[in-house]
C-alpha cells in the first residue's frame, strides 16, 4: 500500500507535476489548505489548472500561486474582492477564468465523483454562463447541460486525522464544508495537511476511495 503519512509537506507534493489539475477546498479565507499551497509554491510547479471557489486574498490562499504565476487556468465562482494577484494576471491575460455559479461548481465536481456525465439545470439559463451550452426544456423549464469537472488532485485542510492507523480526517465547522467533501470524493488523490505546524496530527496523504472524510460536525 502506498505511503499515506508523511513527515513533511514538501514530500507530500513531490510528485505533483506541471500541468496538474488540482481542486482546492476552502471558502473565502476559511479552510484553504494553506500549508499545501505553500509547498506547491516552494516546489514551483507551473501551468496548474486550479478548481476553487475563490482566487485568494492578497498573498493568502491561492494568492501566492497567482503571484508566482503558477496557475494558468482557474475554474471558480467568486474570485473575491481582494484577489489582487489573480486580477493582475487576469488583466494581463496570463490566466484564463471559467466563472461558474457556486452550486453548479460543486455539483459538477460531485458529478465527476459520482460517475455522471453531466446534468441539466435551470441555473444560469439566459445568462453568460449558458453561452455555448446545450439547452433544452425539461418539465416545462428551460435548462442547460452542465458537464463534470475532473481533477488529478484534491487539496484539503483537516482539523485532525488519525494518520498512523487509517486515513480518516476531520474538519471543523465551516472550515471544511466549503468544497472539501465535494471535491475529495472525486477520484483525485486527496492531499490534506493539518492546519497548524506542530499540531499532534501527522501529515496525511489519502488514497482515493479509502477515506472517510469530515463527518458532519455538530454545532
Amino acid at each position, binding site marked *: 500500500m502506498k505511503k499515506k503519512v508523511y513527515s513533511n509537506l514538501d514530500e507530500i507534493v513531490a510528485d505533483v507535476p506541471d500541468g496538474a489539475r488540482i481542486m482546492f477546498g476552502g471558502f473565502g479565507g476559511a479552510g484553504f489548505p494553506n500549508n499545501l499551497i505553500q509547498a506547491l509554491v516552494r516546489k514551483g510547479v507551473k501551468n496548474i489548472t486550479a478548481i476553487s471557489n475563490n482566487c485568494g486574498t492578497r498573498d493568502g490562499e491561492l494568492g501566492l500561486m497567482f503571484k508566482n504565476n503558477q496557475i494558468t487556468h482557474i475554474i471558480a465562482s467568486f474570485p473575491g474582492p481582494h484577489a489582487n494577484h489573480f486580477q493582475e494576471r487576469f488583466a494581463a491575460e496570463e490566466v484564463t477564468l471559467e466563472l461558474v455559479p*457556486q452550486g453548479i461548481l460543486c455539483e459538477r465536481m460531485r458529478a465527476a465523483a459520482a460517475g455522471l456525465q453531466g446534468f441539466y439545470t435551470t441555473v*444560469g439559463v439566459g445568462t*453568460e454562463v449558458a453561452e455555448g451550452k446545450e439547452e433544452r426544456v425539461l418539465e416545462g423549464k428551460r435548462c442547460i447541460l452542465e458537464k463534470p469537472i475532473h481533477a488529478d488532485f484534491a487539496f484539503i485542510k483537516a482539523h485532525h486525522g488519525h494518520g498512523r492507523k487509517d486515513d480518516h480526517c476531520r474538519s471543523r465547522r465551516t472550515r471544511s464544508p466549503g468544497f472539501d467533501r465535494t471535491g475529495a470524493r472525486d477520484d483525485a488523490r486527496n492531499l490534506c495537511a493539518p492546519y497548524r505546524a506542530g499540531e499532534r496530527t501527522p501529515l496525511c496523504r489519502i488514497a482515493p476511495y479509502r477515506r472517510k472524510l469530515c463527518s458532519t460536525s455538530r454545532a
Partner: protein
Amino acid sequence: MPDSAVQEKALLDKPRLTREQIAQRAAFELPDGAYVNLGWGIPNLIADYLPKEITVYFHSENGILGMGRRAKPGEEDYDLVDAMKVPVTLIPGASFFNQADAHLMTRGGHLDVAVLGGFQVSEKGNLANWKIPGAKGSGGIGGAMDIAAGAKKLIVCMEHVTKDGAPKIVKKCTYPLTGLECVDTIVTDLAVIDVQPQGLVLREVAPGWIPAEVQKLTGAALLTKGRVPEIHLR
C-alpha cells in the same frame, strides 16, 4: 435645463430611506418560521432588524443552517464564517454541511425566502447583480445564480437609482443577467414593488413621496391599485 430635468434633480435631492431602513422594511417581508438566505450588501443588514415576534432560520451557502448573529470581539472563530467570510455565531440546533448540500437547498426550492442585492431588475423580474459592464476585473457570481433559480420567494434590496441618478428598475436589463423572471419583490429606498404577471405593482412608497415621483425615477411602468400607502417603519 428643461423643466423635467429640473424636477428630476429636485427629486434626487429629496430624502430617501437609508440602507438600514431598506433592510428594516425588507425584514417585515419574512414570514415566521421561514428558512432564509441573505446576500451581500443591504440584505446582510436584515438580520439586525427582525421583528421580535418572528423566528427565522438563516442559511449560509458556505454550509450553515441556523446561523446566529455576527460574532462579537473576542468571540470570533475564523472557522465559523458566513458567506461574506465574517465570523458569526450559531443558534441551538444549527448544522453544517458541504457546499453541494448547501446549494441543494438553494436550487431545490428549500429556501422560503432569499434576499439579494441588485444592480438592475427588469419589469419581468429579471435580475442583474454580478457584473457591471466595463468595470475592472473579472466579476464574480458566487451563489447568486443558484439562489435566484431556486428560492421560493426572491426579494431584491437595492437603491432605487444609481449614484448618477439612472433607474435601476428598468424595462430590460442591460447588465449581465443573474437569472430570468426570478424576482418577486423589490425593496428600495423609495418603494416596495411586487413583480406580478401584469407588470410591476407599486405597493408602498417612502415617507414624503408620491407614486408619480417614484415613477419618474423608475425605468419601467409602475401599476397602482388605489391609494399607495407610505412605508411604515416601527
